[in-house]
């Protein structure tokens, strides 16, 4: 594919004057290291943090600024293991010192708006930051469409689909629940972040119940009739949680009409389900700032698949859950892979290239069924302008030995250790 570098962009890159203005405007004392083009990254999650690191890796002289409101980031990956009592909160919490150490200016702030003409973003603090190219990775936001369930009431029946406070609340509710209770998980409809996530969560909660409250159970009331790694999960559940997990497909659940977070009741057209702990997971859309910036078409952000440049606003790239990446799932590993392709493209484009070199991606989602029973789905894709074309992959094979499952559980921890080092430094 061919991308024209605009004359204006080239001058911005070449001209040192622009850089001086940026510092004057923001009044930033330290600023990013380097004297090359300015790349600004919105969001310090799996996509954003990886992008910041890899722009610096591929273009050591580039000036990179990353804006993220939180001082530390709790990962969704392994947050289900936290719910199951296998890892503690500290293990899944990461700070940004490794990214700062690379010379990236990490700003604890929130991006409020975009001026694509002026090529600036304005922050909550009032600072205005200039960019030569902008990379946006804001993750997801929720569609509050079910009566009784909104941002405020969700605190009582936590979705815990953005790891942090609600994950801790959900764990506490599980701990406080009496033995003999019912935990209801209501997974979202497609598309949503981490397709196997709700079913891994059911497994990890069942592990906690089986170990601590053996008269209790998990009821999954789905908004889909099939789900990711279904065969592998079902095999694992049959072996480990026969009396603990019941899955009800969407056609049998019917449409959810109302949620009462106080009584923890979920009403459908045909039934009422009472829970002791209710984990309702809303349907999803791109993070709010993507909508505010005008990067969306419907719920998500359309992008050029080889550069991740927005199809709506030139000079702005969108990666991770917020972007429509045909062929790939919404996952942390996918966001990490997209970030690297995007970082490579951004560095090349700002170095005067008119075509980008390469786009090849991969993703693996491990799920723990028990602490010693892991399953995975993996894929490798070759990028084309139309889609990411899968060239290999698949789900863990059926009917494997205990040793095979134990190895996958072990490697799941290995994946977590290495990918978080790759994302956060």
């Amino acid at each position, binding site marked *: 594919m061919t991308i024209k570098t605009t004359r204006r962009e080239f001058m911005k890159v070449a001209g040192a004057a622009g850089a001086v203005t940026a510092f004057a405007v923001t009044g930033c004392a330290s600023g990013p290291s380097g004297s090359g083009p300015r790349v600004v990254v919105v969001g310090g999650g799996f996509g954003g943090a990886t992008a910041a690191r890899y722009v610096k890796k591929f273009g050591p002289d580039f000036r990179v600024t990353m804006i993220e409101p939180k001082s530390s980031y709790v990962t969704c990956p392994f947050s289900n293991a936290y719910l199951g009592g296998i890892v503690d909160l500290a293990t899944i919490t990461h700070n940004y010192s490794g990214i700062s150490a690379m010379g990236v200016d990490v700003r604890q702030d929130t991006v409020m708006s975009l001026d694509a003409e002026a090529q600036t973003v304005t922050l909550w603090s009032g600072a205005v930051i200039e960019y030569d190219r902008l990379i946006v990775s804001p993750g997801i936001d929720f569609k509050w469409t079910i009566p009784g369930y909104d941002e405020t009431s969700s605190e009582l029946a936590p979705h815990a689909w953005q790891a942090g406070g609600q994950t801790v609340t959900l764990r506490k509710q599980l701990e406080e629940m009496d033995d003999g209770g019912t935990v209801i998980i209501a997974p979202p409809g497609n598309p949503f972040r981490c397709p196997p996530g709700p079913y891994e969560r059911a497994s990890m909660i069942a592990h906690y119940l089986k170990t601590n409250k053996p008269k209790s159970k998990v009821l999954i009331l789905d908004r889909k009739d099939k789900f990711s790694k279904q065969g592998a999960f079902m095999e694992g559940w049959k072996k480990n949680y026969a009396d603990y997990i019941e899955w009800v497909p969407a056609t049998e659940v019917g449409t959810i009409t109302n949620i009462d977070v106080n009584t923890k009741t979920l009403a459908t057209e045909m039934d009422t389900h009472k829970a002791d702990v209710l984990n309702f997971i809303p349907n999803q859309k791109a993070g709010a700032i993507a909508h505010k910036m005008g990067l969306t078409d419907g719920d998500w952000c359309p992008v050029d698949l080889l550069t991740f440049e927005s199809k709506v606003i030139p000079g702005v790239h969108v990666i991770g859950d917020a972007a429509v990446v045909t062929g790939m799932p919404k996952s942390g590993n996918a966001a990490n892979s997209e970030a690297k392709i995007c970082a490579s493209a951004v560095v*090349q484009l700002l170095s005067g290239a008119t075509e980008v070199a390469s786009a090849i991606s991969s993703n693996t989602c491990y799920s723990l069924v028990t602490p010693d029973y892991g399953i995975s789905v993996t894929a490798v894709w070759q990028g084309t302008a139309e889609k990411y074309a899968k060239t290999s*992959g698949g789900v863990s094979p059926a009917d494997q030995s205990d040793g095979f499952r134990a190895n996958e559980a072990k490697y799941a921890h290995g994946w977590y250790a290495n990918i978080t080092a790759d994302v956060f430094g």
Partner: protein
Amino acid sequence: MNVKLGIAAAVSAVFISAQASTAFAENLNADLLVSNCVVCHGDDGISVGSTPSIDGIAKDRLVAMLQSFKDGSRSGTIMTRIAPGYSDAQLEVIAGALAGN
């Protein structure tokens, strides 16, 4: 973070752009290819977790290992699902980059 890799990458990014069409068609960007492996095997192939490290292995041996996962003659929990996704040319580039570290 490996500074050496960073500088090499910046140089190769500029270099690759000169021959972009060929490189793109075959997806032979070494940095991007290897970046798919580091999420499990660690930066430069040095794992910080329970997955094996793959640094310090001679190129020919690495190619042979990857080919054996690709054709199924060697078993594994996941490499048999990953290796077939890469062309022979890509596996050569990956092995060369990892061995060069």
